């Protein structure tokens, strides 16, 4: 594959006091690919994602975006460079409608955020883009519902819709399927398999079916360290992975 590398880490480390949550990690994420990341709980996956989006500052090491080091820029600038993320713990505007949630996201691209006088409701296009984002994740019907009043699973969908609404080029998704029903999961899987043709997606997920189905590249992390990266098949059969993460035998015990 000769896709461009968009995002890269070089010797990335994150220590919490004495704890090495992430230890010397070097990875590359490519355009038009979905890069799956798995690993046991506490392996540092969320930590990695949090650093890729600027939420945490690395203890040492570098993050490169299109070859440029961005380890020291402000958190909001990550999003402006097209690095969007969803949160593991649902993180939305819970007192606003689903549409409004996405509108906030769209508005950053459309501008006018310093316009004191122009009504926020006056631009049809903004609403349209926001609605499209909702429809993409299958929340079209919930458009005008207050976010806190839709179910947990739906909130997870909304979470992704919001990231999409910012039209990112890199999508960092932290367990987007957690708490979703089968149908909704399937919807997201379909969605992601479409999206990965256009975006660079980094997906952290414990749902193995989804990960195996979607990943072009798969990285396994254990205890903050890189264990193996490769195609799904390579990784799945790696005995170390089995021991550390998947366990023997089937998903069902």
């Amino acid at each position, binding site marked *: 594959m000769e896709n461009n590398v968009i995002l890269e880490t070089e010797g990335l480390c994150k220590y*919490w006091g004495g704890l090495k949550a992430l230890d010397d990690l070097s990875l590359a994420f490519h355009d038009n690919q979905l890069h799956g990341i*798995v*690993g*046991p*709980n*506490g*392996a*540092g*996956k*969320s*930590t990695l994602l949090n650093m890729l989006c600027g939420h945490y500052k690395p203890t040492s090491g570098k993050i490169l975006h299109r070859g440029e080091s961005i380890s020291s820029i402000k958190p909001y600038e990550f999003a402006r460079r097209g690095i969007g993320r969803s949160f*593991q*713990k*649902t993180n939305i505007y819970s007192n606003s409608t689903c549409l409004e949630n996405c509108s906030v996201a769209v508005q950053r691209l459309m501008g006018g955020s310093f316009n004191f006088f122009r009504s926020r409701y006056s631009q049809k296009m903004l609403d349209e883009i926001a609605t499209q984002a909702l429809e993409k994740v299958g929340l079209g019907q919930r458009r005008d519902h207050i976010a806190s*009043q*839709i*179910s*947990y*699973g*739906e909130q997870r969908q909304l979470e992704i819709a919001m990231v999409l609404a910012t039209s990112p080029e890199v999508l960092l998704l932290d*367990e987007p399927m*957690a*708490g*979703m*029903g*089968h*149908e*909704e999961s*399937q919807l997201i899987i379909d969605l992601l398999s479409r999206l990965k043709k256009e975006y660079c997606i980094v997906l952290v997920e*414990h749902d*193995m079916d989804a990960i195996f189905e979607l990943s072009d590249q798969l990285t396994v992390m254990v205890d903050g360290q890189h264990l193996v990266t490769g195609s799904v098949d390579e990784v799945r059969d790696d005995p170390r992975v089995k021991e*550390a*993460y*998947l*366990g023997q035998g089937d*998903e*069902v*015990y």
Partner: protein
Amino acid sequence: MSNLLEVKSLHSLYGESHVLHGVSFSLDSGQALSLMGRNGMGKTTTLKSILGLVTPRSGTVSFKGENITNLATWQRMKRDIAYVPEGRGMFHNLTVKEHLQVAARANNQGEKIWDYDRVLDTFPRLKERLSNLGTQLSGGEQQMLAIGRALVTNPELLILDEATEGLAPLIRKEIWEVIRTIKESGISTIIVDKNIQVLQKLCDRHVVLVKGKVVMNLDAEQLQSNLAQVEGYLGV
């Protein structure tokens, strides 16, 4: 086998929106019951209504033959019920160790089957994080802690709302293993989860919710024979 929990025609509302429309089911002691349904069908609301975190407009909840509908949440929990909530309910200002210490107690029979040490043995991961605050844990670690915290109260009825969410496959298996042991030791459980295969093996009763109504209430065998229909309801 005696009737442990009985839920009768619960109607619950959030403000004006009517979420539960007469949910009824019962659970015998020692049994495991699965509560299934798509997102937003009212599973969590049912559990919260049982626990008194949501006040039902009508309907009754009885536990061991006693009507507990009008009791405060803590009084219900004192009757040896434990809860692992959706979203884990961590305390941001307590360490892992304190989470377990604060919850630990013997049940009404005076038994202390689950204690601090046993939880840490079950989830060795937590042992390495004893002094982390609840919110300084990874998602999965939080989930383990939430389960541990429920177990150290030595419940008679354990209620798990999406307890395996966010856990790695290996741990997930362990959790199921734990639940099985729990069940075998005579503790009853209500489980909300989306993994129907596991539920099928583990649970004695299966309740399927659609839009706040119980559409199916099956025992293990019945589930076997109606699997397709159930899967239809769940959108598998």
